[in-house]
């Protein structure tokens, strides 16, 4: 639909390209979705019929990574698993202006006088960016992402939160749920790319070590955030605060499997409960 809409912009634009009726009249193939069992052969056929230089443009997240259709029973893969792709245009869907702008830039066409038409309007959602200073690495963004576009990579004492450009559908859910408001979808980044695999943004968080078994388990920043939240919302004496801080630094596996730690946790909970009962 967005590709058809660029026709509305084209009459005013002399970019030098036109829509071809058949693949064998065309030099550029624009693909707007992931490939399924039925379209795979059509795609191969269309690519074979193209005239040189046989450029393939994947438009939108589905063409690049299958987006939210990934794992669907009829899907056979992203476009580049079937034919070579020269250019990926970001968006879900990309706006007509973005498609035209990306094509013009990538194919080095002159856009003189067209700039106002190609500009992204204010307020549109662009690539997600994570604030490295405030992100606590809790993975809520990754857990809500409908397109599986956010990777959580734990290793070597740190957690990396990585926003994969090709899979993002720009829904903004990561921005909505982030407990520390560290994610923003901002427009203005380049709207196309040639090589997949790059991230739009990343944050690396050192992992805390379990005070009992020594294993790395959760980002230190996440534990600190939880502690701050407890201190803000509960009035606790110094002893309770120290006990809670200590319990935060025991990994979940130890908390749930070591009898001394379970007893210590119940002792803490009973003592907190007793104080609450006295207050109320």
């Amino acid at each position: 639909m967005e590709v058809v809409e660029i026709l509305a912009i084209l009459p005013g634009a002399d970019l030098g390209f036109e829509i071809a009726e058949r693949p064998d009249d065309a030099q550029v193939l624009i693909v707007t979705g992931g490939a399924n069992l039925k379209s795979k052969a059509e795609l191969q056929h269309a690519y074979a019929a193209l005239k040189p230089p046989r450029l393939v443009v994947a438009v939108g997240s589905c063409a690049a990574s299958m987006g939210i259709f990934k794992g669907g029973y009829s899907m056979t893969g992203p476009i580049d698993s079937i034919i070579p792709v020269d250019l990926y245009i970001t968006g879900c869907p990309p706006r007509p202006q973005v498609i035209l702008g990306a094509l013009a830039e990538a194919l080095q066409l002159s856009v003189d006088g067209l700039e106002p038409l190609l500009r992204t309007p204010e307020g549109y959602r662009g690539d997600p960016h994570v604030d490295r200073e405030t992100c606590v690495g809790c993975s809520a963004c990754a857990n809500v992402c409908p397109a599986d576009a956010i990777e959580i990579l734990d290793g070597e004492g740190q957690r990396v939160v990585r926003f994969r450009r090709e899979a993002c559908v720009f829904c903004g859910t990561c921005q909505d749920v982030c407990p520390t408001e560290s994610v923003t979808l901002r427009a203005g980044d380049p709207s196309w790319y040639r090589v997949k695999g790059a991230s739009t943004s990343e944050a690396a968080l050192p992992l805390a070590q379990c005070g009992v078994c020594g294993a790395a388990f959760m980002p230190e920043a996440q534990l600190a955030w939880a502690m701050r939240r407890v201190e803000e919302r509960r009035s606790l004496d110094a002893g309770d605060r120290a006990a809670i801080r200590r319990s935060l630094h025991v990994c979940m596996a130890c908390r749930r499997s070591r009898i001394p730690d379970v007893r210590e946790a119940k002792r803490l909970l009973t003592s907190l409960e007793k104080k609450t009962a006295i207050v109320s």
Partner: protein
Amino acid sequence: MELGAAKNRVIVYDAGLCTGCRYCEIACAVWHCGRIDVGQSRIRILFNDENRTEPYAAVNCQHCEEPLCATVCPSEAMHKDRETGWVTVNASTCIGCEMCRAACPLAVPVFDEAQKVAVKCDLCHGEPECVKHCSSRALWLAPREEALRVNERFYLGAGGNP
């Protein structure tokens, strides 16, 4: 059971009576997940053959008066019902950040990999299966005040029952 009867009652566990049969875990998993898979149980019994003085312990939700899990929850999905006293997760507002897991000293909420949300004991909406099926009556449902007294004896008292 009337809702009122289950109000503000919590599960108490006596490690001295527990035999480690794990019927509670099976009953819990069957009620919540429809299958015998103790990995899905919201209660967990630990046993240690080598430690004869403290052989058993239970990881079970205390349904705290001021729950730390709900205190830290950024999306208000973890909720303490003031009417019933139950601490439950609203799966549709849970964002899967695991803050509740971090905050709970017992790490009672577990992360459901399929649904990407926290799951925990919901007291079976008033009639806990673990209590019903406990073969040695090591688990029972007690009014909050009584539960506190018993837990004080177990965990705060000097030289008390395990």
